[in-house]
């Protein structure tokens, strides 16, 4: 089928070294290509315009791999969604991510899509973003400064600024995600509402994490997708749950708080009213499950 007018692309590069890629990014006039599953669709629909350089980062070995580094699980930016499903380290240390990966699109897309791409795409409904928020994930961004490669870290919550907008400067490349390892007896759960196990774009998704303590959850994190301009942490809901036993009253109050705390819109997939109903009902259900297990 017809391809969009790509006259804007003047250079194409597929470097194998991170340094080379960062040099090409330095002038801020590059579009980054990883798996391509979002970029191809967005560009063909005219929602994204190519910059002067199309920079294919998929051959950079430094961006690959999953490893445990001290107290964090480090996911290279090129980790595919299928890798999240298959890698035993993810299953061991962040099963929530494997759960989300299992509800991501289709096998064909999982085989190509990368966590780096999913994070930088910053969709309000991003399937890996919700569990990463609940796991306190950080992004690692690299850039070239004075001939040296330097990197900085940023909590994911601060990285996601709005629909399709992130705190990544144009001369920066997302190189890895750092997911703190949980300690102790942890409850983690992810759910994506839909009539299908995976293929749907989220209407509502949620993740809850917390350390089990005194019949309830401590250090609790509650995150939602598709009910705000970015995936969000429901702080008021977390506050209601923090350190409290998970009895019916607490659960009901938390579900009601979540209902009030999210800000969904009406769109072709669902109305705002219905999304709020789902947030309340699914939160209640997930918390009851936490209480019962």
């Amino acid at each position, binding site marked *: *089928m*017809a*391809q969009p*007018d790509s006259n804007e692309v003047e250079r194409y590069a597929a470097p194998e070294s991170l340094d080379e890629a960062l040099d090409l990014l330095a002038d801020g006039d590059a579009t980054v290509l990883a798996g391509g599953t979002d970029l191809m669709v967005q560009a063909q629909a005219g929602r994204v315009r190519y910059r002067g350089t199309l920079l294919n980062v998929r051959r950079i070995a430094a961006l690959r791999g999953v490893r445990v580094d001290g107290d964090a699980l480090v996911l290279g930016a090129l980790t595919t969604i299928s890798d999240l499903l298959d890698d035993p380290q993810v299953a061991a240390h962040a099963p929530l991510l494997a759960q989300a990966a299992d509800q991501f699109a289709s096998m064909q897309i999982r085989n190509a899509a990368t966590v780096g791409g999913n994070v930088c795409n910053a969709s309000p409904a991003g399937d890996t973003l919700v569990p990463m928020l609940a796991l306190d994930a950080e992004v690692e961004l690299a850039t070239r400064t004075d001939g040296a490669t330097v990197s900085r870290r940023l909590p994911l919550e601060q990285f996601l600024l709005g629909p399709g907008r992130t705190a990544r400067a144009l001369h920066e490349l997302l190189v890895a995600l750092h997911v703190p390892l949980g300690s102790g007896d942890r409850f983690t759960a992810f759910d994506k*509402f839909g*009539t*299908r*196990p995976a*293929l*749907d*774009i989220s209407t509502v998704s949620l993740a809850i994490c917390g350390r089990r303590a005194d019949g309830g959850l401590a250090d609790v994190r509650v995150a939602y997708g598709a009910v705000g301009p970015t995936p969000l942490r429901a702080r008021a809901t977390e506050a209601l749950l923090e350190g409290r036993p998970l009895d019916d009253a607490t659960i009901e109050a938390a579900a009601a708080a979540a209902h009030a705390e999210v800000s969904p*819109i*009406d*769109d*072709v*997939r*669902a*109305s705002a*009213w*219905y999304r709020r*109903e*789902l947030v309340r*009902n*699914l939160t209640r*259900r997930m918390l009851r499950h936490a209480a019962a297990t």
Partner: protein
Amino acid sequence: MHYESKVEPIAPPPVARQSLIGQRISKLDAPDKASGRTRYIHDLNLPGQLVGKILRCNRAHARIVAIDTTAARALPGVHAVLTAADIPQRCIGVNKDNPPLKSGKVRSPRDEVAAVAADSEAIALQALALIEVVYEDLPPLFDARAATRPGAPVIQETKPDNVSIAFDYDHGDLAAGEAASDVIVEETFQLHYVTHCCMGVSGIIADFDDNSGNLTLYSNTQVPFLHKREFAEVLELDPSRIRIIQPPIGGGFGSKLDIYPFEPICVYLAQATGRPVKLVFTREEEFLASPTRQPATVRLRSGAKKDGTLTFRDMEVLLDNGAYTSWGATIPFVMMQTASSLYRVPHCRFHSAAVYTNNPTAGSFRGYGNLQATFAIEQQMDRLAEQLGLDPLELRLINAQEAGETTGQGMQFKSCGFKACLETAAGASDFTRKHAANVARRGDADPVKRGIGIASMLHVGGGAKIYPSDGCGTILKLDDFGHVTLLTGASEIGQGSETVLAQLVGEELGVPLSAITVVNNDTEVTPWDVGVHASRTTFIAGNSALGAAQLAKEKILNAAAALTDLDPAALDLTGGWVVRRPNDAQVMTLDKLLRSLHFKEKAELVVTSFYYEPPSVHQDKGFKGDVSAAYAWATQVVEVEVDTETGIVRTLKVTAAHDVGRVLNRLGLEGQIEGGIVMGQGYGTTEELVVEQGRCRNPNFRDYKLVTAPEIPEMELHFIESRDGEGPQGAKGVGEAPAICMAAATANAIYNATGVQIHRLPLTPENVYRALHGQSTPPAMEP
């Protein structure tokens, strides 16, 4: 010693007789399809071919003030830019109200205002972007209910009252029926827009030769012979100069039963450029510009006596015709059949009006109005049952017809498996017990409820005499290797018709399927057939093929008799042999016989032809008459799980009993039923074309939800073989049946689970959740 040689062996071995009927037979073209060899229209390219693209107006209702194509014409690589000014002003469509390129005004966002032929798709799209059109917006009309009110915008000048087509039917005496009723129910139902979503998008290739005036079209039409006439009219060509070649189709489901603007547009481009032109839709264009299923508002009022017998049915239907008229406006033909004859209905009145709006146009779609009518009727049957204190199955059995009955509309039910369908589906699914148990559990604490619902359908199963002829021609030729070529007018649209026809001929001539080639895709070669619609192909093309095969068999056996000095009545064909009754002793192989026919003194070929016209009649002016040679029934029992906290309805199991007359190709039949059930599941619970301000808001698979593999129910199929006397080997048509009553059965199941009845489709989670919580469906939402 002197020995006389003898011709007859002492004890010729018998040929093992194996019938093909009822077997699981693989589709003849499946191996090619499974290896990617099959070339669909998208895969065909002619030398010198140009790419055609259409500029659509994206305005609901507007006057065309000016079109400037100068810049587009000047673009290198552009061979033609056409507007209405460049082509004859002929119209297409059921009401001949649809000019392929619009002039004067546009009436819907999909309207075609210009077309381009260029060297490549990229150039064609650039050219479209350079065409400047000035519009003056006119007041739009989106609400069908407002179309006939005074002061409503007039959409088509020839129909100032905005009524495209109206139908009126009645039998009996409605007032008497009302008076005789002990219970009466009246409800209104809303049926929504869905679309065919064939996996292969629409396309056409036009190759016009100036010198000879010959036009060759590569088209996925389901009605090639009717289309020759349609094209001839709109193009002002001699119909005998038009040849239609049908590449394998990427899905039909009724979408290719009408001629659409893009088709003559492609021919105009070919004529203007002197080059072949290929015009293929994008998927987005397929959603935006293809015909939909006809949406409908159905007001249904019906009654019954205390003893459970139905008394009357009064159905009033409002159809949103859209801006132009296609087959959607004629679905009342089918709806009135269901209203008048699904169950015994002594008194019936039916009225429908299709009104013009600036919305999308509906076409023909598998089931053709029967889904809409059955959704209303089969829900109301459950309401009547409830008011009468009868079980839903009981009420249906009391009113189900039997063989030998004629309905108020004049339909003669010669073979009728209706009651068997009801009893089989209900029995196999343990319907009555589960239905009662689910009612008892409605008040339980568990938010996930189980429901079971039943619905039946009636549809034509032996063609439908709506055109001057409902016939189909076959030419059969046998060569000297015993190979059979079957030329049929009947198209294959993925349903396996070519395999069934080969099966019927193979059975008759006693040859294996590997010895048969089916040719069905070139109007230059194949005999006339009216087309693939009304589930008619197995019945009518099948009888046609059988007729030709029987003539061939007669010729063959007469020749064998002459050669062997036997009585032709003592001979038969089986296993590739001419055999002798009663033990099927070998006489000679078929190919040897055919060679001897060729090479003897009075040489002749075995070529036969047969044109089968079913013994049905045209309806009279009151729409009464035995319009089909046979009728078919089905009952489906649907079991669901309703999550009342989310509204998600999971279709767990479908138990389907289909009156098919006779199982021919068991594998193909199962495939049709399973596919139709899942299509019905989509219609009922997942699919919706969201139309706002005349525009489709979800023109993609991301937001138009087809059913996917994880969602399909368990399907248990039962075939009722009522052995129709006219059908080939007793078979009747089933193509549309399995899609028809799914939505009704599902709605009934949801009611069984929750006590909440939902009168509108689709039964998507939000819609079900709102119904459960007493909320109405929201108005148009932001995209």
